[in-house]
């Protein structure tokens, strides 16, 4: 990291606009990428093994070093971020959203210099304060008062600065009474309050915040949000804000970045990006058709293979949204290349909580057990009756196997669909059960 006084020559700028852009961009991110070698993080690397390897086969060790240096090992690489470009202007509040594993945390870690990028460059024009977790460095044996100082210093505050704001921090946290109690005796709520109170009084030029509002009670969350609103609106601080709380993102950020698979897939006004994100999530969920891809060459030679699968409505049209009273047809195309004994095709339906609602196979009437199945292309269609599944989203995993002998194929979560209420029990009132069958009731008036 290099601090230096920015000296510039006015002749570098073609016109005034160029100059203004230069002055206002407080964060500039260019071609940023971060590569992890899979297994590096969890890996238990023992010096003993490394040394033993060097002594056992010095040449292959040297060879692998050369390969790494030339960048030729690509087998187990994973790009957590790739080709990320954006600029943030002074005083701007930028939201960053995306699914888990989209690269949000990696981006923030690089920006806060906790981990280096693999490619690209970042320019930060100002003091950076990052808040990736509340209460970083809190020591359980120390008192609240002592931890305010320790935590403040770790977050980059000077001792004088903390002294000046000490009363304000204590007041914000609302734990005056317990200031001289070791924090190990605090409730988790008090702990979070104190931690956030310290963080809220940071005064860097650029503030980086990761999902810290997920902790704490709702009342305190609101207090924090309004404090952050003050910070950004009144004091003109530049903030990067990651949150799963889309409402908070909406209220704080004018612009938002949507990350997916380590790339920026949308960048613009927050409202647009959030609605795009929600749309995209819905699309991902409605996957009514599936085409099986063979993974490797030897998989092609096996006796049976899955070709495709789809969801159909009663008109025979491909569909991913069904009414709760309507039937759902699961259609599975597969090919038997050689005679196989006792082969069956089955599927599992899982709901959003990953509960298996039920499973079904084409051998449920026991017609194939112990019998040969002839070669050829098949289409199996299973009818799921209406008034059975509850309202919600479902995932289907398809498999083909000879029980207790061999699993020929599995397609996990290959189909997804949604049930919406259009009559039946769910139209009377919402149910919390896994299934929601329409059952017969015989109702007699006795007296």
């Amino acid at each position, binding site marked *: *990291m*290099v*601090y*230096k*006084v*920015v000296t510039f020559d006015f002749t570098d700028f073609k016109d005034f606009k160029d100059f203004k852009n230069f*002055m206002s961009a*407080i964060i500039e991110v260019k071609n940023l990428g971060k590569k*992890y070698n899979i297994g*590096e*993080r969890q890996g*238990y*690397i*023992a*010096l*003993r093994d*490394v040394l033993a390897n060097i002594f056992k086969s010095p040449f292959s060790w040297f060879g692998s070093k050369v390969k790494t240096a030339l960048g030729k090992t690509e087998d187990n690489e994973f790009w957590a971020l790739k080709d990320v470009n954006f600029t943030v202007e*002074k005083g701007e509040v930028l939201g960053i959203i995306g699914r888990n594993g989209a690269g949000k945390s990696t981006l923030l*870690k*690089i*920006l*806060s*210099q*906790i*981990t*280096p*990028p*693999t*490619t*690209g*460059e*970042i*320019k*930060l*024009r*100002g*003091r*950076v304060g*990052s808040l*990736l*977790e509340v209460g*970083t*460095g809190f*020591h359980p*044996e*120390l008192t609240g008062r*002592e931890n305010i*100082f*320790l935590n403040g*210093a*770790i*977050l*980059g*505050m*000077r*001792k004088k600065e903390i002294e000046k704001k000490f009363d304000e921090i204590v007041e914000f946290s609302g734990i005056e009474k317990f200031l001289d109690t070791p924090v190990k005796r605090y409730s988790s709520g008090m702990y979070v309050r104190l931690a956030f109170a310290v963080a809220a009084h940071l005064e860097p*030029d650029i503030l980086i915040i990761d999902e810290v509002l997920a902790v704490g009670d709702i009342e305190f969350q609101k207090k924090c949000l309004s404090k952050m609103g003050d910070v950004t609106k009144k004091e003109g601080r530049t903030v990067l804000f990651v949150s799963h709380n889309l409402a908070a993102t909406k209220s704080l950020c004018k612009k938002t970045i949507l990350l997916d698979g380590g790339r920026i897939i949308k960048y613009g006004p927050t409202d647009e990006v959030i609605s795009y994100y929600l749309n995209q999530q819905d699309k991902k969920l409605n996957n009514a058709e599936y085409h099986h891809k063979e993974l490797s060459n030897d998989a092609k030679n096996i006796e049976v293979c899955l070709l495709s699968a789809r969801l159909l409505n009663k008109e025979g049209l491909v569909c991913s949204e069904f009414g709760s009273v309507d039937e759902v047809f699961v259609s599975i195309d597969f090919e038997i290349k050689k005679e196989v004994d006792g082969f069956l095709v089955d599927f599992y339906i899982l709901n959003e909580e990953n509960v298996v609602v039920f499973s079904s196979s084409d051998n449920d009437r026991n017609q194939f057990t112990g019998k040969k199945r002839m070669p050829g292309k098949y289409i199996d269609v299973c009818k799921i009756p209406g008034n059975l599944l509850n309202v919600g989203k479902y995932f289907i995993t398809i498999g083909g196997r000879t029980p207790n002998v061999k699993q020929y194929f599995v397609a996990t979560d290959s189909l997804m669909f949604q049930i919406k209420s259009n009559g039946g029990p769910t139209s009377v009132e919402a149910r919390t059960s896994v299934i929601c069958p329409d059952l017969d009731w015989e109702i007699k008036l006795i007296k």
Partner: protein
Amino acid sequence: MSMEIIIKPKNKWWQLDLNEIWQFRDLFYFFTWRDLKVKYKQTAIGALWAIFQPFVTMVVFTIFFGRLAQMPSDGIPYPIFVYTGLIFWTLFSSGLTHASNTFMENEKIVTKVYFPRIILPISSIITNIVDFLIASIILVGMMIFYHYIPSLLGLVFFPLLIIMTIFSTLGIGLLFGSLNVKYRDVRFVLPFFIQLLIFITPVIYPVSIVSEKFRWILGLNPMAGVIDTARVVILGVGQINWLLLEVSTISMLVYCFLGYFYFKKVERYFADII
């Protein structure tokens, strides 16, 4: 906007940004303060522990090595002979232990907040200097008791020897600390290694038991030169073994360079591999 930070994939290893360390100078104080506070809060006798520990070790060593084993001590009473060596040895060995483990112990901070990482091992060594200074009080008491008057040379050399010990500790501590982050078995080997190290350091025996021809080899351990010189200048007995001191100084510089070089190489990846 007076400062600009540029983040790039690679940093040059020789770029020790003193400016940046200065920005974070309060952290030295707070880490040291935290370690001292926590350490003395957890022991019943508090700061007295810093005196108690080397004192008891001195008594035990005097009984076993001085009396029972009749270890030579260059004509100096064995208690003060061994104690002079012990306080420097303790500064080195516990500083090394703490510096080697500091990145692992502060894992939560290292993975969540940025600051120049070198602050951590330095702070853990400063913590031990405080203990050293407290333990030195006993040395003063013993000097009065045994009627030793420090020479002027001693007053000049004493701080220099402390600095040499600190840099030896830092160099080796940076190396071990970085290895410790990367290789998970290092932490099991370290305590054992440091324990053994006392036997190749002239703490319980004088340098003079090694034949003059090979004495300089002891200097590959920087603490050999420090402890031998400390006895001469503080107690005013004998002559400084300049060859030994020179070899020790050179090996200290080599360890510092190696440790710092390796540390710089892996420092930025700590959060990824810790």
